[in-house]
């Protein structure tokens, strides 16, 4: 049985990765999960300099999900390279660094700084709904998506994944723009912008007013977008959005994802990422699937 997948030249032992922002750089979760068992760890977004993030409260639970507006708090690329990359290098897993910035120059500074680092890929966050400049501003206009992708590709030494926002009219348009800009892979979806109001205090629950919704309630939206995108582009897709278990992950793969990321589910069960790996293997045994690649995009019309 073969669970390994090839993601733009990088071989992952299995298709299970962690979603950026939910897993830090793996240190905290390594007490619960054997990181060697994961296909890749995707780190929390890192910028050229440290970012303080948004005021609290930064999270709120909603029915079947949560809102977050952490605002990309991060320690900056220097400390990240000194501390987080060496930590992850101890493990037999692939390292994917999520990169954020306010401006093209800031993204490029991080991409260039990472050029000589021993990481496997970069995921460019052009879809964070919680920061005023950068983030999603690059991800909602196909011309901007293509331009930033191109600029990053010119400087990058590692394969580039563009992380797309669902907060657009047509995600396939953004996916095609990223592909045209030279993206090696796409990851989708980032969170869906939402809001929660405390009716007793008549105030916003989040200090940022709006936050990105994640969790099982958004899973069907993510599956639909992964399916549509898979029809529209040739580059591999990393599917994410509300994956809580192996069944959700397999659904995403059948929709067209080559790999999957586990995000919010890590908060519900710190051991879930490893359980998803085991669950996929169990599914493959049950249905006699020799190679996981047989499942990618294998959904059929009824």
């Amino acid at each position, binding site marked *: 049985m073969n669970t390994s997948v090839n993601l733009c030249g990088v071989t992952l032992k299995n298709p299970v990765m962690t979603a950026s922002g939910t897993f830090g750089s793996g240190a*905290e979760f390594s007490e619960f999960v054997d990181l060697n068992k994961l296909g890749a760890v995707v780190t929390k977004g890192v910028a050229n300099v440290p970012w303080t993030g948004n005021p609290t409260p930064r999270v709120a639970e909603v029915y079947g999900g949560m809102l977050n507006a952490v605002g990309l708090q991060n320690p900056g690329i220097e400390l990240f390279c000194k501390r987080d990359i060496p930590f992850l290098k101890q493990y037999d897993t692939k390292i994917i660094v999520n990169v954020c910035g306010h401006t093209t120059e800031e993204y490029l500074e991080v991409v260039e700084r990472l050029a000589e680092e021993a990481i496997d890929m970069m995921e460019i966050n052009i879809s964070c709904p919680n920061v005023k400049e950068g983030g999603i501003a690059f991800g909602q206009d196909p011309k901007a998506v293509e331009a930033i992708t191109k600029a990053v590709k010119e400087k990058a030494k590692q394969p580039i994944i563009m992380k797309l926002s669902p907060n657009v009219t047509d995600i396939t348009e953004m996916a095609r723009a990223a592909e045209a800009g030279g993206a090696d892979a796409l990851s989708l979806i980032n969170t869906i912008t939402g809001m929660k109001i405390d009716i007793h205090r008549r105030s916003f629950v989040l200090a940022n007013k709006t936050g990105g919704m994640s969790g099982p309630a958004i899973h069907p939206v993510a599956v639909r977008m992964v399916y549509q995108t898979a029809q529209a582009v040739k580059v591999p897709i990393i599917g994410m959005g509300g994956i809580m278990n192996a069944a959700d992950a397999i659904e995403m793969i059948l929709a067209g994802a080559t790999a999957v990321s586990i995000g919010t589910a890590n908060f519900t069960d710190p051991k879930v990422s490893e359980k998803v790996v085991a669950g996929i293997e169990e599914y493959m045994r049950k249905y006699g699937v020799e190679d996981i690649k047989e499942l990618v995009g294998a959904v059929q019309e009824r």
Partner: protein
Amino acid sequence: MEKFEELAKVMDQKELSPGIFDLTLKTEQIAAHAVAGQFVAVYCNDKSKILPRPISLCGIDREDNILRLVYRVTGEGSGTEEFSKLTKGDTIKILGPLGNGFTVSSKKALLVGGGIGVPPMLQLAKEMKGEFSIVMGYRDAGTFLLDEFKEVAKTYVATENGSVGTQGNVLDAIKANELDAEVIYACGPMPMLRALAAYAKEKGIDCYISMEERMACGIGACLACVCKSKEKDEHTNVHNKRICKEGPVFDAREVEL
């Protein structure tokens, strides 16, 4: 500090005062490794509720591996309402022990709790080494756990409506009873912590406060529950500390309140 994810067994549950529940759990390892001031993340059985609820430890029996959680039901349909329906023999998933906990000193101390910040002070009171007194603040006559505090040390009370003890807040009770100390340990609402921190600063004494914030992961990965720190934090590399990891107990001088 080692953390454990366990299916804890409910040994007992009772309602101490309207909406305040007292849950006794048998754990495999968590209680044996816990200290006063730490907390556990309690997961809901209702799958629509995806985040664990952080609940402080009111009692720790390390020998028999038993934890006591005293918590408030936050509303209809809430996760805590689900917990309040647990009865003997039920199981509930918990993760812990989490956070740093209090560091007990032998200095003359005041233990101060307000509202749902009262419960964790009981375990601390039982672990105190030197001379100390207790000041508890409640909204009204629903003075849960008060008798148990009185068994441990001299206990003063403040209630907002004046039905028991000093009318007003815990600081009013401290002043009315002319209590003095070399160190304050406190858990309660932010205005109370702010007032105590200012009072301690004025008196030139130590003050350790247990803070709370909305959490997601509970283990320091997601950066949801941060508070502002005076100095740049070593881990975050900004002026933010993680309440679930570096806290929940902080020296009042190191955080911005």
